C-alpha cells in the first residue's frame, strides 16, 4: 500500500472528493487530508462538507455549520454549508430581483407561491449544494478543494447531477439560441433591431459556472475521487455498486481507503479476548475479499483507533496514517 503521499507525488489534483456510504469515516478522512495539506504541504486548502449531518463541526470541535468559510489554521479553511438556508436565501434574492426589475411592491401571488414551493423539489437541496461547490471553485482562492460528499447515492449522485445539470443547461441554451435566431430574423425582416436577450446572458452565466465545474469534476487529472471502505460484507457490496456507478458515468476512482482495521499483529497477543479475536478474524476474512476484488485500488488503510478521531491532534494522527500507511493489506 503506497499511501496518499505517493499519490500526491504523482498527481496534482485541484479537487479531492471523498465518496461512499455514511458512517465509514469520509468526513474524518476529508478533515485529516485537509489538515495535512494545509499544515504540512503549505497548500491553501478548503475543506467543504456537503454532508447535512454537520459532522465537520464535530470533528473540528467547533461550530462551523452555516457560518461560511472559516479559517481554522493558517491555510486551513473549512466550510460546512447549510443548504436549506442557501435555498431560502436564493429564493429571497429571486423575489427581490423580480420586485426590482418591475418596480413592484409585492409579488403576484402565483409567482410568490411558485418560488416558495420550489423548496419542496427534492433536487433543490442538492442543486444548492452543487451551486455552492461550483461557486467556491470558480473563485479560485484555494490550491486544493476537498469535498466531503453527502452519503446519499454514495455521493456519486452528485456527479450524475452535475452531468444532468450540464446537459440541461446545454439544451436550454440551445433552445434559447434558436429562439433568439428566429426572433432576430423576424426583426431583420421587419427592419427592426433585435433586442438583447437578458435571459441569454443569464444562461451563459449559468452555463459557464456549471460547465467549468463539471469539466473539472470529470477531469481525472484535476479531480481525484476516493472512497472509504471498511472490512465488512455490506461495505464491500456497497463499494462494488458505487464503482459500477462510476464506470457508468465514465469516471475513474482514484483509490479506496480502508478504515477501521484492527492490526493483524493483535492476533499474536497471547491473552487476546475472544471478542477481539473474533472481530479481527472476521476482518481478515473480508480483507482477503477486498484484496481480491479491489487489489491495487486500495491506497491507504487506517487502523481502528482506540479513540474516536476528532480534534486537531487526532486528525494529525489520521493524516499521518493516510499519507504513510503502516498497515499492510
Amino acid at each position, binding site marked *: 500500500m503506497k499511501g496518499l503521499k505517493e499519490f500526491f507525488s504523482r498527481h496534482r489534483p485541484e479537487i479531492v472528493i471523498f465518496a461512499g456510504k455514511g458512517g465509514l469515516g469520509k468526513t474524518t478522512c476529508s478533515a485529516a487530508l485537509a489538515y495535512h495539506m494545509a499544515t504540512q504541504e503549505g497548500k491553501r486548502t478548503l475543506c467543504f462538507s456537503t454532508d447535512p449531518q454537520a459532522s465537520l463541526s464535530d470533528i473540528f470541535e467547533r461550530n462551523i455549520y452555516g457560518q461560511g468559510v472559516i479559517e481554522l489554521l493558517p491555510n486551513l479553511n473549512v466550510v460546512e454549508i447549510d443548504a436549506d438556508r442557501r435555498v431560502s436565501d436564493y429564493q429571497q434574492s429571486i423575489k427581490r430581483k423580480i420586485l426590482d426589475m418591475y418596480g413592484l411592491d409585492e409579488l403576484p401571488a402565483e409567482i410568490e407561491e411558485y418560488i416558495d414551493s420550489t423548496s419542496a423539489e427534492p433536487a433543490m437541496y442538492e442543486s444548492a449544494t452543487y451551486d455552492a461547490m461550483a461557486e467556491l471553485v470558480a473563485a479560485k482562492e484555494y490550491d486544493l478543494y476537498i469535498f466531503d460528499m453527502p452519503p446519499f447515492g454514495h455521493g456519486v449522485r452528485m456527479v450524475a447531477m452535475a452531468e444532468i445539470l450540464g446537459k440541461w443547461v446545454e439544451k436550454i441554451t440551445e433552445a434559447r439560441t434558436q429562439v433568439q*435566431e*428566429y426572433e*432576430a*430574423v423576424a426583426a*431583420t*425582416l421587419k*427592419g427592426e433591431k433585435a433586442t438583447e436577450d437578458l435571459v441569454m446572458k443569464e444562461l451563459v452565466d449559468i452555463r459557464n459556472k456549471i460547465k467549468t465545474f463539471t469539466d473539472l469534476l470529470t477531469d481525472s487529472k484535476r479531480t481525484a475521487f476516493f472512497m472509504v471502505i471498511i472490512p465488512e460484507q455490506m461495505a464491500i457490496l456497497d463499494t462494488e455498486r458505487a464503482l459500477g456507478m462510476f464506470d457508468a458515468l465514465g469516471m475513474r476512482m482514484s483509490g479506496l481507503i480502508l478504515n477501521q482495521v484492527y492490526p493483524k499483529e493483535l492476533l499474536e497477543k497471547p491473552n487476546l479476548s475472544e471478542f477481539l479475536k473474533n472481530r479481527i478474524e472476521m476482518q481478515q476474512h473480508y480483507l482477503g475479499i477486498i484484496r481480491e476484488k479491489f487489489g491495487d485500488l486500495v491506497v491507504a488503510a487506517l487502523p481502528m483507533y482506540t479513540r474516536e478521531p476528532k480534534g486537531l491532534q487526532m486528525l494529525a494522527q489520521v493524516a499521518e496514517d493516510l499519507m504513510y500507511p503502516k498497515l499492510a493489506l
Partner: protein
Amino acid sequence: MSPFWLVALALIAYYVAYRVYGKWYDRTVWRPDPNRTTPAHMYMDGVEFFPVNRYVLWGYQFKSVAALGPILGPFIAITYGWLPAFLWIVLGNFFIGWLQDYGAIMVSVRNEGRSFGPISYEFTGAAGRNTLLYFILFYLWIISATFIFLIATFWNIFPSTFVATLGILVTGVLVGQMLYRYKMPIGTITIIALILVVVSIWLGMRLPTPKDFLGPWTLAFWAAVTCVILYLASILPMPTFIQPVNYVAFFPAYLAIVLILLGALISPLTGVILQQPAWKTAYAPFVGPIWPILFVAIACGAISGWHSLVGSSSTSKQLDIEPDAHPVGAGAMLSEGMLALASVTAYMVLSPDELKGMTNIGAWVLGATKLTAPYLGGDVSKAVLTTFFGLTLVIYALTVQTLVTRFWRLVAGEIFGESVLGQKHVATFIGLLIPWIFAVSGSWINLWLYFGGSNQLMAGLAIMLITIHLARVKAPTIYTLAPATFMIVTTLSALAVQTFYFFQATMYGLANGKPHPAFVRPPLDQYPGVAIFLNGVFVLVGAALFILGIRMAVLTYRAYGRFRAAPAAPAAVAGGSKE
C-alpha cells in the same frame, strides 16, 4: 380591339364593386365597427394574434391568394371564347368573389379569430369539421397533381427555365443562410438576391435542358424532380427553405404581373390587339358544357376557396380594426381579379394559330411576351422574356405547391395522428407519390377541373359558413346565400360532369381493352391497364369529392336553417365584446 378597353372596363367594374356595392353591403350586413376589439387585440400574443397595418395585411393576403389559378384557368376558359371568361371574372368577382374573401375574414374576426376548421366545428359540429378535413385531404391531392404536372410541363416546354428555377431555389437557400446564419441586413440580402435572380435567368438561358429527352417519360421525370424539391420543402424548416425561396421568388413573380398589366394598359400605344374570338362554343368535348365548367375552370380569378382558408387562418387574427377587412379582403380579391384579367388578356392577344389545340400550356408565356415585348425592346428581348415569364409560371406553381405539400402533411397528421401515416416523412411521401401518379396520368385538364371544382366548392361552403354566421346574428343573408347556392350547385355539377367523363372513359377502356384516347397520354398509352385503372381511380376521387361536398353542403344548409329559426344570439356570440 385593344385589350386596354377590357382592362379599363374591368377596373371600373371593380371600382364600383369596391366603392359602391361594397360600402352598401358593409352598411347593410356586416356593419364593421372600428371600436369593436378585434381578436388581434383581444388575444394579442405577438405570434398568431397581433395587429398589423392594413397595407401590410393587404400585401400578405394578396400574395397568399394570387397563384397559378387566375393565370392558367383562363386558358381553359377561353375554350368557350374570351367573352364568357371575361364576364365571369368581372361579374363573379363583383357578386361572389370578394364577398367570400371579405366574409371569411369578418366571420373569423367576429368568432374570436377562429379559422375555418373550428368555425365549421362550431356551426356544423364534429361531423362538419371532419367532412371538411377529408374533403381538404382530397382537394390538396388534386391541387398537387395539377401543379406538379404543370411545373414538369413548364420545365419541358421552356428548356431554359429548369436551371433558372434551380438558381432561384439556391438563391433562396442562400438568402436563408444570410438571414439566419450571417445575420445580414435585409437590404443587402435583397440586392444580392436580385443579382442572383438575374444570374439565374441568364444561366437558364445558357444552359437549356433538352426537350423531351426521355421521350414519353420526360414529364414523369420532371414531375419526380418536382416532388423531390417539394419533399425537401415539406420536411426542412419552413423559415429556412420555403420562406426565403418565396422571398426571392416574389420579385420576378410580381414584376411579371406589373409588366403584363402595363402592357395591357398601354396596348393602344403598342398596337397589340385581340385576336381570339369573343365566342367559340357552348360545349367543348371532354371538357364539358359552359355551365358549369367555365365557373370552375377559372380556378381563382373570380372566386376561390383557398382564399377563405388563408383569410381565416392568419389574416383575421391580425386585423387591427374591423373596417380594415374591407380593403384587405375585398381589395385583395379584386386585385386578384385584375391578375386573372391580365392573363385572359395575354391569351386574347394570341392568334388562333399561335394557340393551336389544347396542348400548348405555354400559351400564356407567348401572350405575355407578345404584350410586353413591344415596350421592352421588341424582338431582341423576346428570348429573355420567354424565359422570364416561363420562370414566373414555374415560380407561381412551385411556391404555392410547397405550402400545399406541407399543408397536406399537417392534414395527414391530423387524420392519422401518431400512426405511421401521420409521420412527417411518410405523410409527405404519400402526399407526393399519389399526386405524382395522378400527374403522370396526363388527364390534366380534367384534373384541373376537379381542382377548380373542389376549390370553388370549398368557396361555396365557405360562403355558406359565412351565411350561417349572418343568420345567427340576424343579419341579412340573401347576398351570400344566393351566391353560395349558385356556387355549390355549379361546382357539384361540375364535379359530377367530370366524374361522369372519367366513368365513361373507364367504361370505354374496359369495353375496348384500351384507354379512351382523350383520357390518356404518353407514357401511359403504353400501359393500357394502368391507364384504365387510373381512370377508375379518378372516378373514385371525383365521387369522394362529390359525396364529401354534398355532405358538407347538407350540413351547412341544415345549420343555416337551425340558426335562422333560432332567436337572436347574444352579443358575445356575434363577435368581440363591445368596448
